[in-house]
């Protein structure tokens, strides 16, 4: 499978000289789901936002297919095929469901009449709610809309920042089943998650980020062994133990 997203030695952060992501490297192939895991404060969300163009990159490389995109503006990345779903406030609440999707289609120069029925088929709940303001949707529906919005321009890579946050276990299962469907269509998915169990259940690989660096990049089944992740998340605790 071809590499859809390649991150190499990435350093990024909100303030100059204060890197939160410190030399992270990761590759994702087309159609693959990679779960980005790690303890709180490891820099998972910052890494996702840096790749999406929302956080300044200090050094390193990010390639979307063959194209170097490190430091590119977020709106150009979205149009170039990199979809990003933020953790919170990930829909335009004052716009209806249809307006959210039509706007994404218009700015990406995608034919809404052709693309929206495909997305409504993938997310039938959205079809029923298309005339409702996004701000009135339930948490699960919002997450579906956020994914659908990011999928409108047919992205090659989809990055999701904690899509399970605030959802019930049943809704998480539903949302992740949709993600598996999306990946099966050839989209590379980078799933930033705290819900390790659910993420590894659908991911091919898991990358563990500790203190801004990818500490381990291994097949998901290897990380599902009890006790492995705890050791990887807190390597210093193990070293300090008597």
């Amino acid at each position: 499978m071809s590499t859809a997203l390649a991150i190499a030695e990435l350093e990024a952060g909100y303030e100059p000289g204060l890197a939160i992501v410190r030399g992270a490297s990761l590759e994702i192939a087309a159609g693959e789901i990679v779960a980005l895991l790690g303890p709180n404060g490891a820099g998972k969300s910052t890494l996702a936002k840096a790749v999406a163009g929302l956080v300044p990159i200090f050094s390193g490389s990010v390639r979307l297919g063959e194209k170097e995109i490190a430091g590119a503006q977020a709106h150009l990345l979205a149009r170039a095929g990199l979809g990003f779903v933020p953790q919170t406030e990930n829909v335009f609440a004052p716009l209806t469901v249809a307006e959210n999707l039509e706007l994404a289609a218009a700015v990406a120069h995608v034919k809404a009449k052709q693309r929206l029925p495909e997305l409504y088929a993938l997310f039938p709940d959205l079809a029923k709610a298309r005339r409702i303001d996004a701000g009135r949707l339930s948490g699960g529906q919002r997450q579906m809309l956020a994914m659908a919005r990011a999928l409108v321009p047919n992205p090659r890579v989809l990055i999701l920042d904690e899509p399970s946050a605030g959802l019930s276990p049943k809704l998480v299962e539903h949302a992740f089943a949709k993600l598996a469907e999306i990946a099966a269509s050839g989209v590379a998915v980078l799933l930033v998650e705290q819900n390790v169990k659910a993420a590894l259940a659908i991911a091919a690989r898991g990358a563990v980020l500790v203190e801004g660096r990818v500490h381990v990049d291994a097949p998901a089944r290897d990380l599902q062994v009890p006790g492995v992740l705890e050791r990887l998340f807190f390597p210093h605790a193990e070293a300090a133990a008597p």
Partner: protein
Amino acid sequence: MILQIIADGLIVGSTIALGAIGLTMTYSLLRFANFAHGEFIAWGAYLALTFLGFFIALGGGGAMAPLGPFSFGWQLLAALVAGAIATALLALVLDWLLFDRLSAQGSAIVLTIASFGAALALRNFLQFVYGSLPAYYTRELQIAIHIVPRDVGGGLRATPDQLFVLGLALVLVVGLHLFLQRTTAGRAMRAVAHNPALARVTGIDVASVVRWTWILGAILAAVAGTFAGLVGQLRPQIGFDLLLPLFAAAILGGIGSVPGAVIGGLIVGLAESAAVPLIGAEYRAAAAFGVLIAILLVRPQGLFAERAK
């Protein structure tokens, strides 16, 4: 009497509403209160005066031939358009020179104080260029026509120019509403106002949307200034005097809400109009203060705040 108060209030309110729309749009996208917005109103009015002279000269000079029952000819309509375009350019230059640079490193309070300074500079430069004496687009006398006879609610009279101002303001507000609701550019503006970061990852060029917001706000301000000059007189303080009613209207409607700014503008206009027979014409401007204080005490988030979010 009551009908006349309502009609006068709506005419004044329509001008306030047009100005308040620009103010609230700038606030919702750029997150600062732009005190220089009043000067866009004044510059729009005076630039239209300059273009009016140009178009009259272009037509061979002499007096402006009025269009139908109005006091003005086609030259003022052309000057209104040209003045609005020139005001939009002025707003873009001010953004490029000041606000864009400061927003990259400053907070909302820095931008607000900068807008104070810009307002002072723009007002004084306007006075330097045009002088402080009142000016007029036309010296044609207009006779108010009876629209409702005196025995119905005290009657209602208005000049054709006042009806033109009310009608065109209504057309612009409806047009703006359709633009924001139906067009991609309008929806992009609403999206950026709601969540700029999400707008960026959706593929929206936020910088371009901000530029269009300045352009739209300045055009509406210029039209408001020209209307104020048409039904009254041109003075360098015309924008400064409207600033308080603009803020009262924007806050009353709920900062960030365009429909709120329109309703707020009309309410402030009606309050000003009702203040004349109740407390005297000299205290008319105090009505906007009264409305502003009442809103801040009773409903500080404004009437349409939920929609604004």
